[in-house]
């Protein structure tokens, strides 16, 4: 019975056009697009130098000054910074001598004259600084000897967000886009999970009603369907990853097995979440599809998969969302792989995702297991 259900769920998944599009075609098409688009940009800015900036200090801010100094010195400095007044700074910006001006008032603000990688890095630096401002101020005032490590952590985060391995001189800014793409594709498994709920919950579809009246154990058949969807999802995501790694030859570092593992964990979360969402309420199939898609998209959006700064914004005002938003956790998996040499943080995110998956699966099952309905 288990195998019978598994086999047909798998067949079913691979013949679902939406599924194949979102999970297989979408990442491959978009990946190719990123590759083509970014490769040309990459050539233009391939030689990395420190970024020239001007700082206009309207208010005294010792901590910020210290950090800028640190980042402007050393072996591979991030910035070439000048402290000057507003007028001179604007002149320099106009003549393209600097990439941006940071104004130090009670708040920090940035002025740039165009968009580009350098501008993005400055922005990212400011975001990171603002997130950590209290820690930095505290460190400068009380434990100045620790400042270096705080700054290191911060610049690593910037590197990671903008995907600049500054320390290794490898200037592949765009890997993050590919990571996001994989995370998104994995997470779109929710579409497939949704069908499991619809096809098993007697009051959601005629097929489910028919299954309900057959002499089959629901736990067995749902587990089989979940595993089949997960397998289908895993195969598609792996094809996507393989395509990005070996056909486009995007350099994603040397932790290749872990990239696949992250794809697998992400897929599991996606499938179980779709199942969970699908099992609630008695709505039309298309409405459920739309809801599940919206939740998936919202989750991706909040995690910064679409606009990078959203995540920073959330980290600042509602950090809990980033801790439990599955899409954020999946994209974090990749960040962690990229930044940290040990797997501690990676493991934490991984386990969180697995726990979420189990909660989704059990929650969905509790909704779906019922066999008798008040209304069909």
């Amino acid at each position, binding site marked *: 019975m288990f195998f019978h259900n598994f086999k047909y769920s798998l*067949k079913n998944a691979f013949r679902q056009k939406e599924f194949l599009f979102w999970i297989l075609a979408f990442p491959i098409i978009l990946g190719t697009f990123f590759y083509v688009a970014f490769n040309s940009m990459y050539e233009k800015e391939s030689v990395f130098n420190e970024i020239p900036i001007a700082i206009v200090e309207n208010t005294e801010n010792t901590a910020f000054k210290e950090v800028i100094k640190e980042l402007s010195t050393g072996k591979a400095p991030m910035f070439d910074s000048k402290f000057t007044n507003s007028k001179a700074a604007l002149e320099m910006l106009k003549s393209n001598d600097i990439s941006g001006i940071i104004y130090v008032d009670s708040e920090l603000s940035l002025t740039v004259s165009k968009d580009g990688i350098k501008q993005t890095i400055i922005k990212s630096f400011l975001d990171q600084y603002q997130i950590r401002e209290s820690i930095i101020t505290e460190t400068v005032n009380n434990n100045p000897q620790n400042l270096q490590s705080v700054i290191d952590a911060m610049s690593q985060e910037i590197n990671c967000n903008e995907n600049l391995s500054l320390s290794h001189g490898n200037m592949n800014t765009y890997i993050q886009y590919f990571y996001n793409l994989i995370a998104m594709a994995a997470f779109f498994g929710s579409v497939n999970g949704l069908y499991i709920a619809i096809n098993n919950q007697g009051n959601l579809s005629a097929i489910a009603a028919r*299954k309900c*009246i057959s002499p089959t154990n629901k736990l067995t058949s749902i587990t089989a369907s979940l595993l089949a969807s997960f397998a289908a999802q895993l195969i598609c995501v792996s094809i996507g990853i393989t395509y990005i790694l070996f056909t486009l030859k995007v350099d994603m570092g040397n932790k290749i097995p872990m990239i696949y593992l992250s794809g697998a964990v992400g897929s599991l979360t996606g499938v179980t979440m779709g199942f969970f969402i699908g099992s609630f309420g008695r709505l039309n199939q298309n409405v459920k599809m739309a809801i599940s898609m919206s939740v998936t998209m919202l989750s991706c959006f909040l995690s910064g998969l679409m606009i990078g700064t959203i995540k920073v914004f959330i980290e600042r005002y509602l950090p809990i969302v980033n801790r439990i938003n599955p899409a954020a956790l999946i994209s974090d998996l990749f960040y962690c792989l990229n930044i940290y040499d040990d797997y501690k943080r990676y493991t934490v995110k991984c386990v969180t995702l697995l726990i979420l998956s189990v909660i989704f699966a059990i929650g969905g099952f509790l909704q779906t297991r019922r066999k008798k309905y008040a209304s069909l």
Partner: protein
Amino acid sequence: MAKTVVKIENLVKRYKELIALDHFNLEIKEGEILGLLGPNGSGKTTTINCLLSLLSFDKGTIEIFGEKMTPSNYKIKKQIGIIMQNVAVFNELTVYENIDYFCGLYITDKSLRKKYVQEAIEFTGLQDFIKFHPKKLSGGLLRRLNIACGIAHKPKLIILDEPTVAVDPQSRNKILEGIADLNRNGATIIYTSHYMEEVEQLCTRIAIMDKGKNLAIGTKDELKKMIKNTETVTIEVLDLENSIISKINNLPHVYEVNYNDSKLRVYCSGGKHNLVRILDVLTQNNVPFGRVFSELPTLNDVFLEITGKELRDKED
């Protein structure tokens, strides 16, 4: 005495305010083809879903094969085949795969299943379409696939909920013949429909339901005997005075007379020479008349008398 296959007693099902089943009773014996006849919304599907333990109900008991039916009574479920009113097949699977899938929920032995699936395909005449996906099938073929999925595991009790809706007459006849075949092979059948002709042609016993109640049950002849009407005489008359209408009304055995659209309709109850007597009245009064029909009661008459309304609209 044949065994009782289904026994429904005092079944009550409410949807909020609406009482869908109102103390509904039904007993079905082994080998019967029971027709559940009722207009749209009379509670046929609701009855079946309660019977299958898919719907919860407010009151009553349901026994199948002498045991209480529950959602986890797999022993009973194994012996039931259901053809739902709405086609329930996977669009992504082929005809063969669909039948194999649903059969596989009942039959785990692979070689036996293969044989059964093959037989179901032949039975429904889908041999030429086994590689087709449901979307590519015509309405009639789709209904046949729906039936194949429901009966492949050779159930002893087969429930068909309006399997011929939206099917052309030729396919409809095929389906009806098929059901009679299944019955000959030993299956007990519950067949719901709002088409009288079908039910009259196919069923050994008929239950008439309306507004969630089982109003009458019996063979078609028994049902027809239950009503007053034994004969309806229709005569084309161009012009008719009221005095003549009341003369006809006063004839023995006549209990109702209608005259409109140049048609005189006389309803009779018992008696032998009703037609002759009516024509005599017309001739004696020099009333010219056209065509004359005399009809025995139909299920529609039965339905009309029992519920006070036509089973379905004329154009249906």
